[in-house]
């Protein structure tokens, strides 16, 4: 025989069910049930912190000359503390070259693949658990990765290469004066360390592209929107994304026609690599390679004003061949 609930019980249960349904609806409406609301996947992220503690016994930036690109990278990184200072065993390292252009290495529009490969090798030697070379190219991503020579070199050295659409984008809160919330390439948020590996070259709008501007390569969306206030946007990015280490490729320097370039006549063989933890000093040095005064380059001045580094003092030079 089945028990037949009385009218009071039915009403109470209906009331309870209503509370559950209404409560769930209200919670959903308020976004309390949305993915990431409780931290397991935030839809708007803040940027990671990758910087390492300053070492008063080490120069903040050095220049290496007089050898093969890989030797210059190794010597410069060693002088600023060795890769073990920047990468700990098991960490995920994001290596950010300039790999934005459908250009070959000789054309100097992208970071020299030998430089990228040596950075990857140094990370491996330091015990990195995972090394990811990531970029959001301007030109066709797959073609650019191949033609730049970076994909093959990085893979051979032991890194993964992530370009869209192999990875997606996450909206991040950058809190900048120009950049507020913006779509950022997702691998950025999986990294324990960031090593910025820009190439020095001319830029039609910002005059120089080096380490600070190279961070543009994390941005999705309509980058053209940022061009009206390019220097502020670059400074915003530099505040949001502070690399553990910057390795500047000046083996070949595009002195005209940047950032796209293409003419070999616009590329000068400089044969230098700079490395360090002061992105402002490194960019200022890059500017001098173009014959520019760093004081005339808005984003360098802004970055210094925001406490990201200093320029003015000459950088220590090491000669690998001597």
């Amino acid at each position, binding site marked *: 025989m089945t028990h037949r609930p009385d009218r009071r019980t039915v009403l109470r249960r209906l009331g309870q*069910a209503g509370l559950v349904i209404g409560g769930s609806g209200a919670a959903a409406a308020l976004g309390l049930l949305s*993915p990431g609301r409780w931290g397991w996947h935030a839809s708007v992220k803040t940027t990671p912190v990758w910087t390492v503690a300053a070492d008063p016994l080490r120069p903040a930036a050095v220049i290496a000359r007089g050898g093969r690109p890989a030797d210059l990278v190794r010597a410069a990184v060693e002088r600023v503390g060795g890769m073990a200072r920047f990468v700990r065993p098991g960490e995920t390292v994001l290596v950010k070259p300039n790999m934005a252009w459908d250009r070959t290495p000789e054309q100097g529009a992208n970071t020299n693949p030998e430089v990228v490969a040596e950075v990857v090798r140094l990370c491996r030697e330091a015990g990195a658990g995972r090394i990811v070379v990531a970029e959001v190219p*301007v030109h066709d991503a797959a073609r650019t990765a191949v033609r730049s020579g970076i994909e093959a070199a990085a893979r051979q050295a032991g890194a993964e290469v992530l370009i869209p659409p192999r990875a997606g*984008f996450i909206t991040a809160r950058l809190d900048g004066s120009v950049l507020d919330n913006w*779509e950022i390439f997702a691998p950025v948020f999986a990294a324990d360390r960031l090593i910025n590996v820009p190439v020095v070259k001319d830029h*039609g709008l910002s005059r120089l592209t080096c380490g600070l501007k190279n961070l543009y390569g994390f941005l999705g969306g309509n980058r*053209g929107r940022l061009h009206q206030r390019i220097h502020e946007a670059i400074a915003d990015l530099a505040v949001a994304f502070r690399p553990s280490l910057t390795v500047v490729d000046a083996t070949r320097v595009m002195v005209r026609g*940047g950032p796209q370039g293409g003419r070999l006549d616009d590329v000068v063989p400089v044969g230098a690599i700079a490395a360090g933890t002061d992105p402002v000093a490194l960019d200022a040095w890059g500017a001098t390679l173009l014959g520019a005064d760093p004081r005339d380059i808005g984003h360098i001045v802004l970055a210094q004003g925001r406490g990201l580094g200093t320029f003015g003092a000459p950088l220590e030079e090491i000669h690998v061949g001597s």
Partner: protein
Amino acid sequence: MRDNRPLRFLGRLLMAAPLVAIMTWLVAGGMSRSFGPVLPPAPPAPSSAPSAVTTLLSGFPRPSGDYPAERLYERVDGAADGLRAAGCRRLLFWTIEDPAAEVELLIFDAEAGAARVLTRDAGPERVSGPGDEASVADQSVYFRRGRLYARIIGDPSAGTDRKRLLQLAERVDRSLRSFDPELPIDKTGGQP
């Protein structure tokens, strides 16, 4: 005794319906929202995507890309503002396999703008060559014909030589004489 099973069933069904609806809503919502990284934004209609753009330049295949002024940055990034300021209203490019080279064609409002950008790119020195004025180097030929400005860059990895690059430039120049820079992107006819 009255059989009230249908009534009880109906009552349970009525009570279950909102729960089913809520579960459906939550599951559907969860599936529609990405739990992983947000998918990349839809790429801004790449001009190299299939479209009606085909034989803009007689004797050449469909362009690899075609960018109106407001989307120049997708091709040249930071150089876009400078080009627009000089009156560039459209950029097309072709990736040529034989000889291995890239051809960019920039369309300006007026000759002065095209001439200014040519000088900015290649300096003031001119040589006899294609177009109204030209700058020729071992691996590049830049020339202007009226308000059209062509940049032809040999692929360094393929070793495209100056002679073949000049031949390509002459072909481009001949085609430019019959080129209609006003040809709308979506009304350019069919594949040859």
